[in-house]
């Protein structure tokens, strides 16, 4: 314990000395974070913060030192997170490399793949994207048809991926392909790593109802990928993919939490509805505000309970489905309520008469409609809970 306390002191001193002041300002949206990569352009402070943290391996605090990670124990990593929280420091690096493919490679990847990719993830040199969904494989992901045919030392890929988050900004893709067309649909899938600069890869952004384009379509035409880039074994990709989906659901819930300042709704209610005798004037909208805030509080308590359970050694269940389902539905209610609170000021698309934050909130509301679709629809989550938690029959 004494060691942990001296680690805490040391960490606090180091963070205070090395973190640029601007890294302590609140985040406006996920794009303010550093996602790394060859194509990213970031402000000087962001790059400096990434460099000093990555040098210590603290972008991936618990990963082994031999691959460039921080080599910290779980307790030390918790201390680091707590101290960063106290200083309101934003993470130096985020993205699918750290949260998804990195942990999977450490568990399942060959030594060669670990050496090739883990240090680059820690340093933020490579930005990763996920090649799962296809036009014909959404909720029924295992029916994917992108074909990979063995040709000597390479697989030749043909097909189309869709809903690739930040596909236009990513350097590498972890991708699910079909390598055995005879096997049952879950059995013939392989998990591959693919360089987005390979000849035959074309990326096209998809414009959403919110006007933004965070997703892309990726077209693959005779793309050659070395067989060494298979993670795990050929035709065993579905198992790995499912493991990653759990991560993704937890991450989606976390991202929303970071974005939502808990006092925001109340402040908006005061600003747009006015006050009478110290109370928000519209009693019905006020009740909706309280309802959303209370449900958020109950969800936060449930997340804490789930973490406590995990700490107490109980096996984690399909909790990610509970949090994905409830967290996204709640975020939609919150976004919907924000537009209701703004009234006519919530109708702007661009131009004069609307504040910048109003325009952004309106688009955020539209974007939030996708929350219950991406990463497994609400209906898929409810199916998982019904089957795996409640044991209801097929």
């Amino acid at each position, binding site marked *: 314990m004494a060691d942990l306390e001296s680690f805490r002191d040391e960490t606090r001193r180091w963070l205070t000395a090395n973190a640029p002041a601007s890294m302590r300002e609140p985040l406006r949206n996920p794009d303010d974070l550093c996602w790394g990569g060859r194509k990213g352009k970031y402000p000087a402070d962001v790059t400096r913060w990434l460099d000093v943290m990555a040098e210590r391996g603290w972008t991936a605090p618990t990963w082994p030192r031999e691959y460039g990670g921080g080599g910290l124990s779980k307790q030390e990593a918790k201390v680091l997170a707590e101290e960063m929280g106290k200083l309101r420091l934003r993470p130096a690096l985020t993205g699918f490399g750290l949260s998804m493919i990195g942990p999977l490679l450490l568990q399942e990847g060959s030594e060669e793949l670990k050496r090739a990719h883990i240090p680059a993830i820690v340093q933020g040199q490579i930005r990763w994207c996920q090649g799962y969904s296809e036009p014909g494989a959404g909720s029924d992901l295992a029916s994917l048809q992108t074909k990979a045919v063995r040709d000597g030392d390479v697989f030749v890929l043909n097909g189309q991926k869709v809903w690739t988050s930040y596909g236009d900004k990513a350097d590498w893709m972890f991708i699910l392909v079909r390598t055995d067309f005879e096997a049952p649909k879950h059995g013939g899938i392989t998990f591959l790593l693919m360089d987005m600069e390979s000849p035959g890869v074309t990326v096209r952004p998809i414009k959403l109802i919110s006007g933004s384009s965070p997703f892309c379509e990726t077209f693959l035409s005779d793309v050659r990928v070395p067989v060494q880039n298979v993670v795990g074994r050929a035709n065993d990709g579905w198992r790995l993919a499912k493991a990653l989906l759990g991560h993704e659901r937890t991450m989606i819930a976390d991202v929303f939490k970071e974005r939502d300042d808990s006092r925001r709704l109340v402040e908006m209610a005061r600003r747009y509805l006015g006050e009478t005798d110290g109370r*928000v004037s519209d009693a019905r909208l006020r009740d909706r505000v*309280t*309802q959303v805030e209370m449900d958020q509080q109950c969800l936060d*308590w449930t997340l804490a309970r789930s973490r406590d359970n995990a700490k*107490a050694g109980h096996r984690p269940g399909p909790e990610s489905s509970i949090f994905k389902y409830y967290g996204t539905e709640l975020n939609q209610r919150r976004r919907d309520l924000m537009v209701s609170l703004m009234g006519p000021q919530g109708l702007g698309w661009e131009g004069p008469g609307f504040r910048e934050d109003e325009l952004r909130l309106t688009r955020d509301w539209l974007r939030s409609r996708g929350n219950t679709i991406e990463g497994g629809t609400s209906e898929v989550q409810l199916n998982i809970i019904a089957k795996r938690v409640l044991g209801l029959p097929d």
Partner: protein
Amino acid sequence: MDLVLTEEQQLLQATVREFVTGRSSLKRIRQLRDADDPTGFSPELWAEMARLGWLGIVLPVEHDGLGLGYLDLLVVMEELGRGLMPEPMLSTVLLGANAILLGGSAAQRAAHLPAVAAGERLLTVAWQESRSRHAPTHVETHARPAGGGWTLAGEKIQVLDAHSAQFLVVSARTRGEARDREGVTLFLVPRDAAGLRVERQQRLDARSVGLVTLDGVRVGPDAVLGEADAGAALLARVLDRATVGLVAEMLGGMTAAFEMTLDYLKSRQQFGVPIGSFQALKHRAAKLYVELQLARSAAMAAARAVDEGRDDKTIARVASIAKARCSDTFMLIGYEGVQMHGGIGMTDEHDIGFFLKRARVAEMTFGDATWHRDRVARLDGY
């Protein structure tokens, strides 16, 4: 800080569950309802619960209690709630004993609390009036100084276990107007006092409640609980703790109703398959399960806030969040439980209806969800 049960609490849970399933049953609850006995519970079981230490679970050791916390109490209340046990935990332990513990003098504590723990004293709090709705500060019952003591007059409605309580804690106005926060005083009044009448009221959950009429009831100066005119704050503290206990009971009730419904979905066959294989019902069951998880977290957070000795405002806020959440979820599970049982769910013969009825009463007890949400907004300054 943990929101998981300790080993001791798991052991306690197993003991209470064994007691409830072994010594009580929904058949017993049905018999109590049909027996038309104003006591409404089993004095024998109550005595056993006293011997097991549960009546003094949160009372300090110096008053013969176990000196445990509200998370331990939650474990007990949840199990009692699963079995819809009507034994007077809410009235005696959570309301009456808390009023005396939090507001009573040393003499009042010594006179009542060890007796409560021993199962020899039944108490209740009479605060609700026909025009107060959910607001405990709305008090029209009044107390006037008389001969060094006080004379009380007024009417209290739906007083829990009023028939069996030996003492009632009565809120009365000693100053000001009906809705003023100041000027409320709590009095400890023996049920057999002259001028105090208890009339049985029948509510839909069949638990014992009474209409209490005070017609010139004279009490001495030592009947005052806490400070004169400052009873509203004391009453709020008592009701918040009782609410934390009630939500634990509700948690047990909604869990049992959910499990009963889930069993039915797996066993009831229509169109040659279990109805639980239909996606329309699967999704509704899954949603109930998620809501239930949130209710459990809220109930545990409320108990923990008391155990951590948080300030009154924090406890009030968390208790209100938990009560609003558990009221809504218990009602939802009650409604969905009846719906998913189909026709049999509408019959008196089936037990699921007992849970809907208890949900409705518990939802309204100590304030409904809307009232508690409004309270949270007020506490948060909007």
